[in-house]
């Protein structure tokens, strides 16, 4: 097997006395889409934030394409340029137009000229049906459009890996589909992705592999067909039963 896109070993993280991640081991191959499922508080979001070095962690190693992010003297800004993240609450910059939101990273962090950054941003926005929104400010957009812009903003950095942190959880139900479709398209383009999600049918549909997080560890993982139809662990079954009862599967 070639070098993994991401290799995580023994990742631990505590908030005060609460240990949120208790030793996560996970390898993600190039072009693989891995969905993280699990109850709120199981550590999905924290794991993604640690990967992007937004959250300091206590111990463990993270290696991206052979480069150890946890080594001493690693330039965190350079690491973050290679790893895109999209947040649950979009976090667009409200004082900038859609176009400026998308070009800020390439211009400031990658040193692209305005002309080049704008040309690339315009092309990306057009690809995701947002061409006519480039001059608007985020408060003029629907939640779904804002989240699509946030995805485009991350893609504009041409990341090697994308982390999606429950990107549809804050959306009205009727806006979820447009965002999921964008993610499907990104996955179809071969992007390696780690997706924390509560959308089980989406996970079943898009993931090459599903990981069930429980109590800060990956309790069970496997192809979606296996996890969703005949989970091996009692805890996984209970979780899925609750999801089904809530009508989310």
């Amino acid at each position, binding site marked *: 097997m070639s070098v993994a896109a991401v290799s995580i070993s023994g990742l631990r993280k505590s908030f005060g006395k609460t240990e949120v991640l208790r030793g996560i081991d996970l390898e993600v191959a190039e072009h693989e889409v891995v969905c993280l499922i699990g109850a709120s508080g199981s550590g999905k979001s924290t794991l993604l934030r640690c990967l*992007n070095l*937004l959250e300091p962690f206590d111990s463990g190693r993270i290696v991206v394409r052979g480069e150890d992010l946890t080594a001493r003297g690693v330039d965190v*800004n*350079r690491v*973050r*340029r290679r790893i*895109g*993240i999209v*947040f649950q*609450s979009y*976090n*667009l*910059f*409200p*004082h900038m137009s859609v176009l400026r939101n998308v070009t*800020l*990273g390439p211009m*400031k*962090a*990658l040193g692209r000229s305005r002309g080049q950054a704008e040309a690339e941003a315009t092309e990306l926005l057009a690809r995701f049906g947002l061409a006519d929104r480039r001059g608007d400010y*985020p*408060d003029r957009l629907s939640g779904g459009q804002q989240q699509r812009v946030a995805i485009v*903003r*991350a893609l504009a*950095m041409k990341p090697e890996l994308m982390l999606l942190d429950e990107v549809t959880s804050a959306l009205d139900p009727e806006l979820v589909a447009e965002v999921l479709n964008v993610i499907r398209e990104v996955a179809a383009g071969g992007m390696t992705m780690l997706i924390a999600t509560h959308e089980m049918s989406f996970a079943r549909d898009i993931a090459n592999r599903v990981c069930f997080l429980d109590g800060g560890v990956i309790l069970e993982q496997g192809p979606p067909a296996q996890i969703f139809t005949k989970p091996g662990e009692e805890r996984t079954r209970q979780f899925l039963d609750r999801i089904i009862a809530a009508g989310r599967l």
Partner: protein
Amino acid sequence: MRTAFFNWDAYRSSFPEISRAFLLNVKIFLIAEAFILVFALLLAVLRGLPGPVFFPVRLLAIAYADFFRGVPTILVIALLGFGAPALALDGIPTSTTFWGIVSLVLIYTAYVSEVYRAGIESVHPSQEAAARSLGLTRTQALGSVVLPQAVRRVIPPLLNDFIGLQKDTALVGILGSVEAFKQSQIEVSADFNFTHYLVAATLFVAITIPLARFTDWLVARDRRRRQAGRLV
């Protein structure tokens, strides 16, 4: 009382001189404000520097703000305005107006930095996280994402401090700089008619009231926007 306070003839007679002197108040205000806006922002940013490395810097910034907010303005003006020229050192300006401006800058920088700080703290941490997640450095995130939003939010309270500064320019008069208050004092001592003070008062109010209304208007507009569910 009518002749001593509301004497129309006295008002008319001193108005030209006092308004000419008032130009000095406006000048002091404008020069001081330009420095205050820059220094205060710098102080607010220094105070927000993270990590143990910057602990001494933060401590100094806090000490500065505490000290200059605690000392009466007139005391600082007297101390520097009378004290600094009295040293008679080469290269130290002897202009009382200069030292008056320096004092106002020292005091108001402390106040205005608190306003900026409130603005910076009002920007949700997720905004900085989003900027950093794109690979922007801390400085870039501050400059492109945090500060532009922070400054926008504190414009009304900033204008409030402008009004205070405009009034306090009169304190420089105690040093002998002939600004509107000093000029009216001169006029009063000549004929013991207090109407001349009223002239200075109207001039101040002519500037501060429009500023206050403008501030109110900005605050109201801000509130309307928030109620409409829009971010500022």
